[in-house]
C-alpha cells in the first residue's frame, strides 16, 4: 500500500509578489506503507516545505497530496483526521512544550482526538515507554527537565497520537552522540513494533546510513533521488555537488576501490565496512 503519494505537487511562497519562490516543484513521489525513509537536502532545498504538505499544514499551489489513498484537499476530506494520522515532529520541538505537567503535555494530542481518559492514559504511558521517559517525570513541569528529556517529551506527544506516519525534522540536532543514538534507536524500535511509516529528515549522513532503508534526496525543489541507501550513497559525486555528503566510511571505501581493491561500491555502515575488510582478508587466506 502507498502511504504517501504526491502528484505534480507544487508550492510557491508569496505567489504573485516580487518575492515569489517555488519551493516544491512538480514533485511526483510514492512512499510505501511501513518504509523508513531518510530525507536529505541542503538548507533551502525545499524538504521542509515538502514534508509540511504531508499532514496538511500547507496547501499545494498545484497538484495533489494523497495519504493512504485519500486526497487531503478533496472537498469531502476531513483534514483534521490526517493531522492525527500523520505526526510531525518539528526541529527543536522542546520549544513547543507548554503544559503544566509532562503528562498533560503528552496527553494534549490524544485529548484533542477525543480519546477517553483510560485510552489517553494508556497512550501517554506507551509513548513514554518508547522514548525511554521514566514515569516519575510525568507529574513534573516540562520546564524542569534537561534539554534531552524535553525533546523526548515532545516526541512522546506525537507518538501518543499513534500516527500511521511519523515525520521527524532533525530530531537529533544539538544532541551528543549518545543522545542521538538513543533517540534514533527508540524511533527505529517504534517503527519495528508498529510498522509505522517513518520519514527522518537529517543533516547527519551517518545517522541516515545507520537507520534508514531508503533515502529521499531533495535538490532545488525537486526529487533528485529516491532509492535504497546503498544506491544513493554510491553516487557520492552527485551528492557532494548538491552540498551534501556521504558518510566518512563510504569515502574511505571509494578510495580503496579506486586503488583497485575489490570492495563493494557502497559501504555505508561500520559493520558493513568491517565485514568487507574481513572478507577480503579471508579471500586472501588470512
Amino acid at each position, binding site marked *: 500500500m502507498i502511504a504517501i503519494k504526491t502528484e505534480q505537487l507544487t508550492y510557491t511562497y508569496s505567489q504573485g509578489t516580487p518575492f515569489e519562490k517555488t519551493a516544491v516543484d512538480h514533485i511526483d513521489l510514492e512512499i510505501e506503507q511501513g518504509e523508513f525513509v531518510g530525507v536529505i*537536502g*541542503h*538548507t*533551502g532545498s525545499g524538504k521542509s516545505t515538502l514534508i509540511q504538505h504531508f499532514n496538511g499544514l500547507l496547501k499545494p499551489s498545484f497538484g495533489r497530496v494523497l495519504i493512504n489513498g485519500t486526497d487531503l484537499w478533496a472537498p469531502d476530506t476531513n483534514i483534521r483526521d490526517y493531522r492525527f494520522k500523520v505526526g510531525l515532529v518539528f*526541529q527543536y520541538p522542546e520549544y513547543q512544550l507548554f503544559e503544566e505537567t509532562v503528562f498533560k503535555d503528552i496527553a494534549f494530542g490524544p485529548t484533542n482526538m477525543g480519546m477517553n481518559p483510560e485510552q489517553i492514559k494508556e497512550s501517554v504511558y506507551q509513548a513514554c515507554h518508547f522514548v525511554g521517559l521514566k514515569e516519575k517525570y510525568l507529574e513534573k513541569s516540562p520546564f*524542569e527537565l*534537561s*534539554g*534531552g528529556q524535553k525533546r523526548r517529551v515532545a516526541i512522546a506527544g506525537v507518538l501518543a497520537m499513534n500516527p500511521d506516519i511519523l515525520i521527524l525534522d*532533525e530530531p537529533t*540536532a*544539538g*544532541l*551528543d*552522540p*549518545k*543522545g*542521538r543514538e538513543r533517540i534514533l534507536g527508540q524511533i527505529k524500535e517504534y517503527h519495528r513494533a508498529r510498522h509505522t511509516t517513518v520519514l527522518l529528515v537529517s*543533516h547527519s*549522513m*551517518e545517522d541516515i546510513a545507520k537507520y534508514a532503508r531508503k533515502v529521499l534526496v531533495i535538490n532545488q525543489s525537486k526529487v533528485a533521488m529516491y532509492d535504497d541507501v546503498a544506491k544513493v550513497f554510491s553516487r557520492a559525486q552527485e551528492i557532494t555537488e548538491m*552540498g*551534501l*555528503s556521504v*558518510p*566518512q*566510511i563510504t*569515502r*574511505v571505501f571509494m*578510495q*580503496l576501490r579506486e*586503488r583497485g*581493491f575489490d570492495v563493494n561500491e557502497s559501504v555505508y555502515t*561500520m559493520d558493513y*565496512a*568491517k565485514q568487507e*575488510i*574481513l572478507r*577480503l*582478508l579471508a579471500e*586472501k*587466506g*588470512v
Partner: protein
Amino acid sequence: MPEILSAKGVTFGYLKEDNELNIVLKNISLSIQEGELVAILGHNGSGKSTIAKHFNAILVPQEGKVTACGIDTKNEEEIYRIRQQVGMVFQNPDNQIVATIVEEDVAFGPENLGIAPAEIRRRVDEALKDVGMYEYKDHAPHQLSGGQKQRIAIAGIIAMRPRCIILDEPTAMLDPKGRREVLTTIRKLNKEHNITVVLITHYMEEAAQCDRVVVMNDGELLFDSTPRDVFSHVQILKEVGLDVPQTTELCHELRRAGINLPDDILTEEECVEALTSLLEGVR
C-alpha cells in the same frame, strides 16, 4: 606562546528549582595559549558551554579564578575589554543577527566599540572577505543559508579584532556544506590570522581537525591532548556518551577482530593508507 585563557580551580553551580545546587564545573583548571585551535567535547550537560561562557565573562566563577587576555573576569570594569578580545558565536545563527543588511550586521560590534566610520568600513570589508561573504554585503541576512549566516556572525566578531573566538556548537543546525564552510573559515582565521579558537562541537570529525582536544565529563576534565591521542581511547569516549570519527572506529573494530593495524588512525587519508598496506601485505 603566551597564555590567553586560563581557568584555575573553577567551580560553578546553578540553583535548581528545589533550591538544590547543581554543580556543573568541579574544580576545573585549563590553560589555552595564544594561537591554539582547541576543540571541547563532552556530552550534553558535561559543562562545556558553562566553561566557555566563563571565558568571556558571561559567567564568573563561584570558586577559583578565570582570566581572559590576562584580565580577571570578576573585574566588572574590564568586561567590555574582555568581550572585545574574546568573541563568542552561538549555535543558532538566527538569534545572532541584528541588522537587515549583511554589512550593517557586521558593523554592529565595531560601532559599539566607538570606532571611527572609515575604520569600520575597512574592518567590515576585511571581515567579510575573510569569511568569504564579501559579495553578499548588500544582501538581507534572512535570505542566506545557515552556513552563510553563521559566517556573517563570525565576521561580526572578527570586525571587533578579537584575539580569541569561542564557538559554541556553531555547526549543529547546518547542512554538510554549511558545516564545511564554517570549519574552513575557522581554520583559516586560526592559521592565517593567528586568532585563538575554542570550538565546542558534537561532531568528532570537526574535533579531529583541531590541534588540541579537551574532553569534559560531568563537570571535570577527562582528556586534554592531541586529537590523535584522545581518539585512541575509543572505549572510554563511548562510555561517556561520545564517539570517535568513523575512520578511527573502523580501525579499532578491526584491531579487536585481531587484525594488525595502527591504533592512532585519525583522518580519511591515514585510514585509506593503513587499509591499503594491510590488504597489499597479503596480496
